[in-house]
């Protein structure tokens, strides 16, 4: 059975319980009704072209579907059909074309992918020169955006401090394709995957520390069995703290609320490591959102939504999130995903509250 047929078979088992809609971060506030889409898919009826693009691929519907219909995958297929048809929003098209040309959706020069470590005061080796063959895999946005660039820089410094050897691929690294797959560009995803896999094989990579949950997800779940250990950096740092190879010495006297990224948390079950890092920091008062862990609210940065704005005006989830953080008395929103940082920072700045990536907080106290 082809994947499409499998999807169709799964969709036919949908009992229209509506749990997906109830779980969906877009339901109610946008015209997106995931349950309705499954219904339409059952009857192969026409879906308005703009609709599938609302999905943030947070995965809540798939995780909660009692019939294992995997609505998120159905959305990907719907998008795929639109992609094959060529009729997709210009912004998405741009991101895809950029990725095709420069191997990153932002269209930045591939040759400058390694710019983030050039100004570091530590030496960052190409992974082929390392003994451990441990690769630090950067997310495109971390490689190019000055705001997010601090993440790989910080993590590199912390790893270095803790005596953990690692290397990078620099300009050879291509986008992991997580978002590309979610946009529905299967072919392009395959190309990125093959390109990265070829590099992993050529350099005999043993372990990959992914800096973004999105990359980790793609490498872990969508590249097939690589025979490579794939972890998110928070797992590594949490272990380092536990072993005592890095010791947070300073204190961070702030109330910090942690936002679980969808791809790290609900989709990959990493809830405790980021929290354990925060909890070891002196003076830091950890807070929790009322919706946290499995029920964390999606920031709406996934599934291509980073590149594309849907045609609806509503209060963004990021704003809702920031509002709650403020109500809870948080002074800092911590998260461990660059997309979350980007989406949350805007409304947070407005409310006078800081958004910090975990590595930033840790860096301050080391």
């Amino acid at each position, binding site marked *: 059975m082809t994947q499409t047929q499998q999807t169709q078979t799964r969709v036919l088992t949908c009992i229209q319980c509506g749990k997906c809609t109830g779980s969906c971060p877009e339901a109610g506030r946008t015209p997106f009704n995931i349950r309705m889409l499954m219904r339409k898919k059952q009857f192969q009826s026409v879906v308005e072209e703009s609709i599938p693009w609302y999905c943030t691929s947070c995965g809540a519907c798939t995780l909660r579907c009692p019939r294992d219909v995997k609505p998120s995958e159905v959305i990907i297929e719907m998008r795929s059909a639109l992609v094959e048809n060529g009729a997709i929003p*210009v912004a998405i098209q741009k991101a895809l074309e950029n990725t095709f040309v420069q191997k990153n959706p*932002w269209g930045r020069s591939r040759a400058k992918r390694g710019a983030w470590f050039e100004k570091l005061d530590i030496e960052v080796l190409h992974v082929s020169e390392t003994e451990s063959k441990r690769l630090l895999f950067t997310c495109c946005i971390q490689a190019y955006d000055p705001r*997010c660039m601090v993440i790989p820089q910080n993590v590199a410094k912390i790893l270095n401090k803790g005596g953990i050897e690692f290397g990078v691929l620099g300009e050879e690294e291509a986008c992991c394709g997580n978002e590309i797959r979610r946009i529905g560009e299967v072919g392009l995803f395959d190309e990125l995957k093959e390109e990265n896999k070829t590099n992993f094989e050529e350099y005999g990579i043993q372990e990959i520390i992914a800096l973004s949950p999105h990359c980790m997800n793609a490498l872990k779940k969508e590249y097939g069995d690589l025979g490579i250990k794939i972890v998110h950096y928070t797992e590594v740092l949490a272990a380092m703290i536990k072993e005592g190879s890095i010791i947070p010495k300073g204190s961070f006297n702030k109330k910090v609320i942690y936002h679980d990224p969808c791809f790290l948390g609900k989709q990959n079950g990493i809830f405790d490591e980021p929290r354990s890092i925060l909890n070891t920091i002196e003076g830091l008062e950890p807070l929790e959102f009322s919706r946290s862990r499995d029920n964390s609210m999606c920031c709406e940065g996934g599934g291509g939504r980073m590149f*594309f*704005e849907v045609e609806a005006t509503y209060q963004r989830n990021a704003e809702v999130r920031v509002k709650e953080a403020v109500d809870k008395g948080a002074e800092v929103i911590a998260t461990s995903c660059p997309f979350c940082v980007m989406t949350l920072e*805007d409304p947070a700045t407005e409310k006078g509250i800081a958004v910090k990536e975990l590595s930033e907080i840790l860096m301050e106290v080391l």
Partner: protein
Amino acid sequence: MSYALVVAEVRRGVFEERNLDAIGLCALMEKDISLLVTDNNNEMNQNPPSSPFGKEGLGGFSGEKLVNTIIKVKIEEALFLNPLNMVGVVKTMMDSKGKPDVIVFTHSSSGTELASYVAGYFDLPLITDVNGFDKERDVFFKSYYSDKIFGEFRKAAQGPFVITVRSGSFKEYAVEKTTPPVIETIEDFPIAEGRNFMEYVEEEKAEIDITKAEFLLSVGRGIGNKDEIPDYEKLADLLKATLSGSRPVIDKMWLPKARQVGTSGKTVKPKVYLAMGISGAFQHIAGMKDSDCIIAVNKDPEAPIFQYAHFGIIADIHKVRDKLLEVLKG
């Protein structure tokens, strides 16, 4: 005597300012300049201009004196700016005056169309979008790879060199001559049938498409609140700019969604992008960084937008706005 022929662009009776760059290059090349210009004073023209330089004249210049010869073509401008007719005009002119050393056009929508057709028709060497000239080495500079590299070019064949000139490149070399120009006239030349002018169309204003605007005035969160929007609209009106915004402004519905610049909105590439109160988030930058000229106004000198801007003003945007309104109105 060798001369340079400048084909003037007159649109709706207005002598386009960029013609001065064409004249300027010729002056820099120290050529005797002949200006080929539509004489709109004929029965086909409903809006006869007040002077050969168009009905508005040439501002500070007493324009006539910039060239040595003015060749008036008795033809309505729309026909004149048709490449199929232009080859007839040029042929007639060359037949009567001899071949010029260079034939210079503006590098504009019509200039390049005319130049390439003329070059092809007469099998002449052509270089477009010239933005510099080194007289000593006799080389022309031309932009490559979106201005990242300049190429130096030289004519490598016989016949007049057909050139289009980038506006703003040579204007300052267009200086007045001591004597007024000789006025000549061309009347008799063939009119081609293959392409006919129908009408001018003003771009529809109803649906603003910011991706097509040449000049965007873009506002960001820095404007503070919605009440400020009308004043920026006024400013955009006066500047003949199109108003656009960054995501926070759109999110708050201060401006319609269609006006959002950024990866999640629209990617724009105007000639001038005037960013007011935009700090320059990554996604926003990605949507406008390829603009020809970026001018940023922001009170924070550390705002990332200044890294991408060509010009900047570090000041309170409302003060800048008020001052601009004052200057524009005064």
